[in-house]
């Protein structure tokens, strides 16, 4: 059987070798890979990073980050902030055209803000305009925005993308509008086609007011992440948004590929549901932490750093005085005994019931399977039975986010550069699925939110790190090395640390 299979394999192999090679044309597109294709190309309905990235090529905001990450006018030309900091007048560029040839005007700005605010639109991005009180058109290229409260740097918050009013009716932008089949923006690239292979083609917008050097861009969906690095190495794609940690060394050694750090503020954790009886006992939480050997869990999945709290090690809020705990079986055993458990048949048992927990994770979290299987073995060897559960995204959102129905979850959080953990750890936080509650932490997080002095904010959050770490609502695991990879054919690459394509109009292919 094996010989036959080998023969067949070799036969197939020889067959592939004689196939013609794909020819490379001079106007080759920039082909980049995403795990999942953008579902919708409309910035006010964006839900995923893949959508945020493609929006960056097609649409523009009033303001945008320059290459030094300072806010600069994009569709705006200049602005005047009122003395009382309660309103601003924005003068718009007059040389901007939409991809369908219409002129960009202040009506587009008004429409976008109103549509995002409009409940009927059900925008996923509505939070971005909550601070705006009203928007008024003052002239074809002048618009006034008033705020609910004083704003000292409103341009920082006016980076959301602007939509063409002429393609919508009234102040509602519905998902089903024909816009979704043919999105129109003002950016350097214009939508070309949705292709049958799930890819999306964009081409250069000839009337772009600025310069754009890429002729074509193609987004390719590669749902199997194991292929992504190989595709890049083979030259089948030119950019890989996020490299799996285990592929880093291979790609670094590849002379056709260059790596760029991208989205580095992410950390993994095991989170307890604090309402489960076993997790209510701090001794049990602490004991479990001492049973987990994070180093050997991390090793098979890539390189990174172990953490002691809810920030990555390089964060300004990370408290370096809190050390990462090391596995310690005897100490863990003492804590379990203090919690009223006894070892019966090598199982930690209380009131006749052996301790058994279910660890739940998301199916599409890379390498989660490896982590969870190793973790299961580690805990089993120390007297705890672990069941595992893998949820798809919808089930995860419903059961974990919605109902907090779990014992322990294995998951990961990614943060933008503000590294705001309020929603995760404040007792009223919308992402505090484990129902963690500590009034002291609440106070610290409130203080940090309102702090305007950097040092005060830092010391407050460093204290929050320490306090949270002492409570063990999670076993903080690690941060993985995170890089994008681009072919050396792509030149003049500068990557935005969060949105990736912000400066892609300067890139070019050679």
């Amino acid at each position: 059987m094996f010989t036959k299979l080998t023969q067949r394999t070799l036969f197939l192999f020889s067959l592939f070798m004689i196939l013609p090679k794909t020819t490379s044309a001079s106007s080759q597109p920039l082909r980049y890979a995403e795990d999942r294709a953008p579902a919708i190309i409309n910035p006010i309905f964006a839900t995923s990073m893949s959508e945020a990235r493609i929006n960056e090529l097609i649409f523009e905001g009033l303001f945008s980050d320059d290459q030094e990450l300072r806010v600069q006018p994009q569709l705006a030309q200049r602005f005047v902030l009122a003395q009382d900091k309660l309103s601003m007048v924005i003068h718009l560029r007059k040389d901007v055209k939409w991809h369908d040839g219409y002129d960009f005007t202040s009506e587009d700005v008004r429409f976008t803000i109103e549509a995002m605010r409009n409940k009927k639109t059900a925008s996923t991005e509505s939070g971005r305009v909550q601070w705006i009180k009203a928007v008024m058109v003052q002239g074809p290229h002048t618009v006034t925005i008033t705020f609910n409260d004083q704003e000292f740097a409103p341009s920082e918050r006016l980076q959301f993308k602007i939509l063409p009013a002429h393609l919508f009716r009234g102040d509602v932008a519905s998902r089903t509008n024909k816009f979704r089949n043919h999105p129109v923006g003002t950016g350097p690239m214009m939508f070309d086609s949705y292709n049958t292979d799930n890819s999306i083609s964009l081409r250069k917008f000839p009337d772009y007011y600025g310069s754009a050097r890429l002729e074509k861009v193609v987004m390719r969906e590669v749902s199997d992440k194991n292929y992504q690095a190989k595709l890049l190495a083979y030259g089948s794609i030119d950019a890989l948004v996020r490299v799996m940690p285990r592929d880093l060394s291979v790609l670094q050694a590849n002379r056709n590929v260059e790596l760029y750090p991208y989205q580095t503020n992410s950390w993994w954790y095991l989170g307890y549901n604090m309402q489960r009886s076993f997790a209510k006992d701090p001794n049990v939480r602490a004991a479990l932490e001492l049973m987990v050997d994070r180093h050997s869990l991390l090793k098979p999945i890539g390189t990174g750093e172990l953490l002691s709290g809810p920030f990555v090690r390089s964060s300004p809020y990370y408290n370096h005085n809190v050390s990462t705990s090391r596995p310690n079986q005897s100490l863990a055993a003492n804590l379990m005994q203090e919690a009223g458990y006894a070892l019966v048949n090598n199982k930690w048992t209380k009131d006749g019931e052996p301790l058994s927990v279910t660890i739940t994770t998301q199916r599409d979290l890379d390498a989660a399977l490896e982590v969870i299987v190793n973790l299961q073995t580690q805990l089993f060897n120390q007297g705890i039975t672990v069941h595992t559960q893998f949820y798809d995204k919808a089930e995860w959102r419903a059961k974990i986010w919605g109902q907090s129905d779990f014992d322990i979850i294995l998951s990961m959080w990614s943060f933008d550069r503000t590294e705001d953990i309020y929603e995760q750890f404040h007792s009223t936080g919308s992402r505090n699925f484990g129902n963690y509650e500590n009034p002291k932490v609440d106070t610290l997080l409130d203080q940090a939110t309102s702090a305007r002095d950097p040092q005060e904010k830092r010391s407050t959050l460093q204290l929050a790190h320490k306090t949270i770490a002492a409570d063990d609502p999670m076993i903080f695991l690690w941060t993985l090395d995170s890089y994008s990879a681009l072919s050396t054919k792509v030149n003049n690459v500068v990557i935005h640390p969060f949105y990736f394509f912000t400066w892609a109009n300067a890139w070019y292919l050679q």
Partner: protein
Amino acid sequence: MTACNTGVQQDVASLPYSWVTALAEDPTVFKDSIEAERSAWIALHSNDPHKALTKSKATASQSTTRVRALVDLTVLFDDLALLSGQIQKGTFRDTMLVDEQDHRTQAAIAAAECHGFTDLISNAKSTEDIKLTTRLKAHQALIDGTLAPQEHLALGESPLLYTESKRGYDPCLFAAQRDFWSSQLLLETNTDGWREALSTIKSPLFSVWTTAHIPPEDLSKTDTLAAVGAFTTALKDQGLAEKQRIPETNTDAREQIRALTKSIDLEKASLPERADTTGQALVAELSLFQGLRQKILLSRARSALKANQFQAALTYASEAIDIGAKGVGPLNSANAFVLLTAARIANGRTREAMDALQPILNSHPYIQGLYEQLGDLVVRENINRTGESKEN
């Protein structure tokens, strides 16, 4: 991976005959030459000049490793001074705390660049100014030779520097230390300038030179100690440094790096024809080509930073660092992290700059104050932004 087709289109010559190839061809000479100061050489190879200094013989006239360690320390603190200046400039640039014409802004920038102390001290008006100038006075004393080096080092390593008054954090600390180490270098080698001091070095082992000996003609052409090795005659002869200057664009810098990398690959690929297995194994085990490549790129990165070619600097520094190797060791020097941090700040990537500096925090506790100041800068820049978090 050496046989991989490269993205670099032009033909590239292999690397000039360097000490790496010389070593591969005759490993016994290498073994003999390091025998006398073995642990100091190991420390130099591991990019640990502090340790190399303690392990070397007591006087520079007897010890190549000692001179080399002094040179490395001077350059390390020069890089730290550069970084310190970038942080200081970043803070003032991004916050616009005060008017640029204000004497305090000027004072801070001057301090970052470590010049004009005398004026600053005499112009001190407020208590804040005096706090700042107290430390500057100490540095001036150090530079003038009226403060004992030990006192200064104690000052540098003291955690009090940061905690006693965060606002009074001294941006000039590292420049003063650089000056201290460079004075020490001249003192110990009994020379009048760094070129002369460098010419006393007997072995270029583990250094930036792409030659088997340190070439005097290059020393005379190089402006500063920090730029040594960036664009040597040997590299120029091979077409690997034809411009002798820092390219203006990121793309040109990248092209230059690709050519250099390819030439190193070619040299590496030619080793089996020249060296026996012992020599080849030695080169591979000690990652000598990687180390050499990094040193050349870092030298270019610092030159680019000093020439205000920040994008090129970022490209050099990013390409220099080995992302697989954590912390300082044979594959990454502390300079690599420091320069990458400085280049990122110069390009406005302050948050990512912290990613670059954090790995050496434990091994170099004296950068704590610098790191904290960078942290403040990051927080300050984002204080008006609203946060976003995502799963996966």
